[in-house]
């Protein structure tokens, strides 16, 4: 009998595990994918080896890469981009850690209050939530990003937009800034050298500007795991959870089981009893009981597990309300080097509360080519699927294929600057996760992810058009000689709100403490619990702050403890006690 079982060691589950382990609870974490124990020996940091959704080390599937990836039904033009394994999708994230806009929280009374998804606000105020942001920001830790060439070019474009620079944690209005990100700043020779001898820890510390955030961070060479530059949870929260006794008085290290898929959350009279999981390699089935279970598999896997466990769904909102930031992609060609392939993958941004945000992105050439062929507007110059949008970009939106794709990429990867538009999209009941009618895999029925590409709300469409226009203006301001807009179909890689937290019992799955309305002692603390799209800002920090808040509620309600965020000081994940214990444990 465990105190707590956490399902999933990604962006949210790792936070719950660390916070509760710090307070002495007996925590078991079961993760469906692998733990990459030695990334520098295991990871090439090349994009097919890393990111191929079928075979890459950052895919959704079991550790054995000779076996097929997990199948998820996508009944439309779309691409679902998630990652299993310890660290979850934070393994390939860019580390960007902005706060959600205040307008997405209850009680907001700013002059633009009607600009947001007003039907689906978080059930507490921004000011009530700030201490949890501060706690997560200090733990990761979050810093102001440094600038490389592509940031200089992006910020030069921002300077032509007539916007102020944001120099606060809270976004107070339309503005631009370097990212606040969970990447350790460059120290020593990092960022100043290409000499491998100097790129070793401790001669180099923090970000080495290698340009491979999306392929998983393993820099600098020889750095201890909790001093890797990017603070994905396999480098930050999980190392803390595994060493909780070393840095927290009374702390108890977690038990971590990996490459094992939870197939059932067991309940009795609508109270959780425990979980059952299956080892991916051997098929061996295990089961444990717990006082509390926390589901953290992500916005697709958590509703899947809920359905496969045949848990109650009285208001039919399990899996509904999927927000994905309705991403779009605009890029410009430049006559000079803009450094796209170097440095943190995105380190500058423009915020438009009420609409969403734009940010720069640098990629390797394969995923850049993927991004340029991905469109809901058909093949440029040939057909439009009834779209083919026009605006301050050149020509119509659409896929670049054949000679045009080749010519654009031959212009030079490092003379292309990308801007991704991240939309404040509405919670919509029809965008949802259900179970597929296709055959089940060894873990049960597989999820089906339905996005109605042409059925987005008027506000979501308005916001996306606004951001795409601003992106094109920014690129022209920065000196682009030609600008393309893609009009992406659904690309859920920011995935949220399928098990949403809300005020109303009519359209939410968890209450304001994170506990599910239908099953007691069962909590949800991944991005599926977000109430809405967070206004557009990258969601991970908000998920982590919310998971921290939910951890306090678990500790108070079921273990008689006191909350800690307002009364204690957080320990930073780079703490030397974590480093030393990891070394003692051979981790």
């Amino acid at each position, binding site marked *: 009998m465990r105190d707590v079982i956490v399902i999933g060691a990604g962006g949210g589950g790792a936070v719950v595990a660390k916070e509760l382990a710090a307070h002495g609870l007996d925590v078991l974490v079961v993760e469906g994918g692998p733990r990459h124990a030695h990334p520098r020996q295991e990871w090439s940091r090349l994009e097919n080896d890393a990111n191929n959704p079928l075979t890459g080390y950052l895919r959704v599937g079991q550790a054995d890469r000779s076996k097929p990836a997990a*199948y998820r039904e*996508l009944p439309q033009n779309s*691409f679902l981009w998630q990652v299993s394994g310890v660290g979850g999708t934070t393994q390939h994230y860019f580390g960007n850690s902005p706060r959600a806009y205040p307008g997405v929280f209850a009680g907001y009374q700013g002059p633009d209050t009607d600009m947001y998804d007003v039907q689906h606000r978080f059930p507490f105020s921004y000011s009530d939530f700030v201490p949890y942001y501060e706690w997560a920001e200090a733990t990761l830790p979050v810093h102001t990003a440094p600038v490389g060439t592509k940031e200089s070019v992006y910020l030069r474009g921002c300077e032509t937009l007539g916007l102020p620079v944001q120099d606060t944690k809270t976004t107070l209005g339309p503005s631009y800034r370097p990212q606040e990100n969970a990447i350790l700043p460059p120290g020593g020779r990092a960022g100043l050298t290409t000499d491998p001898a100097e790129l070793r820890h401790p001669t180099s510390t923090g970000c080495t500007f290698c340009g491979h955030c999306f392929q998983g961070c393993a820099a600098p060479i020889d750095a201890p795991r909790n001093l890797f530059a990017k603070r994905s949870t396999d480098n930050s929260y999980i190392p803390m959870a595994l060493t909780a006794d070393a840095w927290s008085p009374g702390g108890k290290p977690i038990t971590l089981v990996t490459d094992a898929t939870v197939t059932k959350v067991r309940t009795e009279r609508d109270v959780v009893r425990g979980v059952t999981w299956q080892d991916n390699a051997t098929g061996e089935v295990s089961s444990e009981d717990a006082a509390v279970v926390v589901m953290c598999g992500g916005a697709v896997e958590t509703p899947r597990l809920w359905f496969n466990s045949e848990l109650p769904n009285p208001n039919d909102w399990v899996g509904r309300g999927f927000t994905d930031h309705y991403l779009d992609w605009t890029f410009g060609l430049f006559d000079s080097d803009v450094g796209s392939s170097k440095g943190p993958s995105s380190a500058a941004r423009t915020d438009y509360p009420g609409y969403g945000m734009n940010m720069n992105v640098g990629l390797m050439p394969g*995923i850049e080519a993927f991004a340029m062929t991905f469109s809901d507007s058909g093949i440029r110059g040939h057909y439009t699927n009834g779209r083919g949008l026009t605006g301050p970009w050149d020509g119509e939106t659409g896929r670049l294929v054949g000679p045009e794709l*080749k010519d654009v990429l031959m212009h030079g990867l490092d003379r292309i600057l990308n801007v991704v538009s991240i939309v404040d999209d509405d919670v919509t009941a029809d965008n949802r996760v259900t179970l597929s009618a296709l055959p089940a895999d060894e873990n049960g029925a597989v999820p089906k992810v339905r996005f109605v590409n042409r059925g987005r709300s008027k506000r979501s469409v308005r916001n996306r058009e606004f951001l795409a226009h601003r992106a094109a203006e920014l690129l022209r301001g920065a000196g682009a000689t030609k600008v393309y807009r893609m009009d992406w179909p659904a690309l859920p890689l920011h995935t949220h709100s399928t098990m949403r937290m809300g005020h109303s019992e009519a359209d939410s799955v968890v209450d304001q403490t994170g506990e599910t309305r239908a099953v007691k002692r069962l909590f949800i603390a991944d991005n599926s619990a977000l109430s809405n799209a967070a206004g557009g800002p990258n969601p991970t920090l908000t998920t982590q702050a919310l998971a921290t808040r939910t951890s306090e509620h678990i500790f108070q309600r079921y273990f008689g403890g006191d909350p800690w965020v307002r009364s204690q000081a957080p320990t930073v994940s780079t703490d030397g006690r974590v480093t030393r214990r990891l070394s003692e444990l051979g981790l």
Partner: protein
Amino acid sequence: MNTDPHDRRTFLARIGLLGAVAGAGALLPGAVASPGARAASGARAASDPLLGLVNTALAELARDTLNGLAVFVVPGPDAYSAAQGTRRDEPGAMEANTPDFLIESLDNYVPVPDQLAGPLASALANGLADVDVPLPDGLRPLPTGELLDLDQAVRTLLRNDETVPLSLVIALLLNSLATLVNPAAVGGAFLSPFARLSFAEKAEAFRMMEEPAAGLVSAIDDELSGPLQGTASGLLEFIAGALLEFSAFGTYCESSTFDPASLSVTSTPVGWRLSGYDPGVIAGWDEFQGYYQGRKEVSAR
């Protein structure tokens, strides 16, 4: 099920198989010339040499079709690019081994359940043979008995879910669409009708997948079991996109020269050369320029 020999000849020509078997038959003389009467005697044994021959021909057909697809996305100096009218001097998808990348991915790693792949193949085998296409003289005419033999071998292979590689299903789909776009594509250079299309005609075939015609959708839907009916249009939309995006990704990533043992490339991949990508030493770049406006920290507010 349509069994009219004329229609079946048309169907086999349209998916590219008549030409493919004609080529393979030259390697295995007599294999196709099995007695037509056997067609009426029921299912073929797995050891039947005709099944082996047809299997080989179908694999070659699939590869030829994917050659035509890969150069559609990234053309180069090869014959397939020339045939679509977009020959280029620089290397392209063929030089990047993108067809291998596609076949390997589709057949070994795309976890599309047989319950989807089988009906799709079956729909293409049964449901799209209605449009009459004049066969060119160049195709080796098969006597009716042999034609039925061949047709039955194809049906046997497509009915057996375990033997339908996804690359073949994709090839059947692209070739069927190709002959809808341009009926004359049933004959000419290459094995694959899709590979014979011009660039604009290939784009039209993709339009038909992304804006699927009702007839195509219903033909596939009819083959799907109850709970899956109605999914054909979404499936076609997804496949159309994935084929283009994976061809692009496969050509520009490191796949063709990657060495798993050393976790590095053995030579500069085609896509890196084309895009001017330089990974440097992988471990870092001298790219740090400082902090915007000198600010290393924002206010806590």
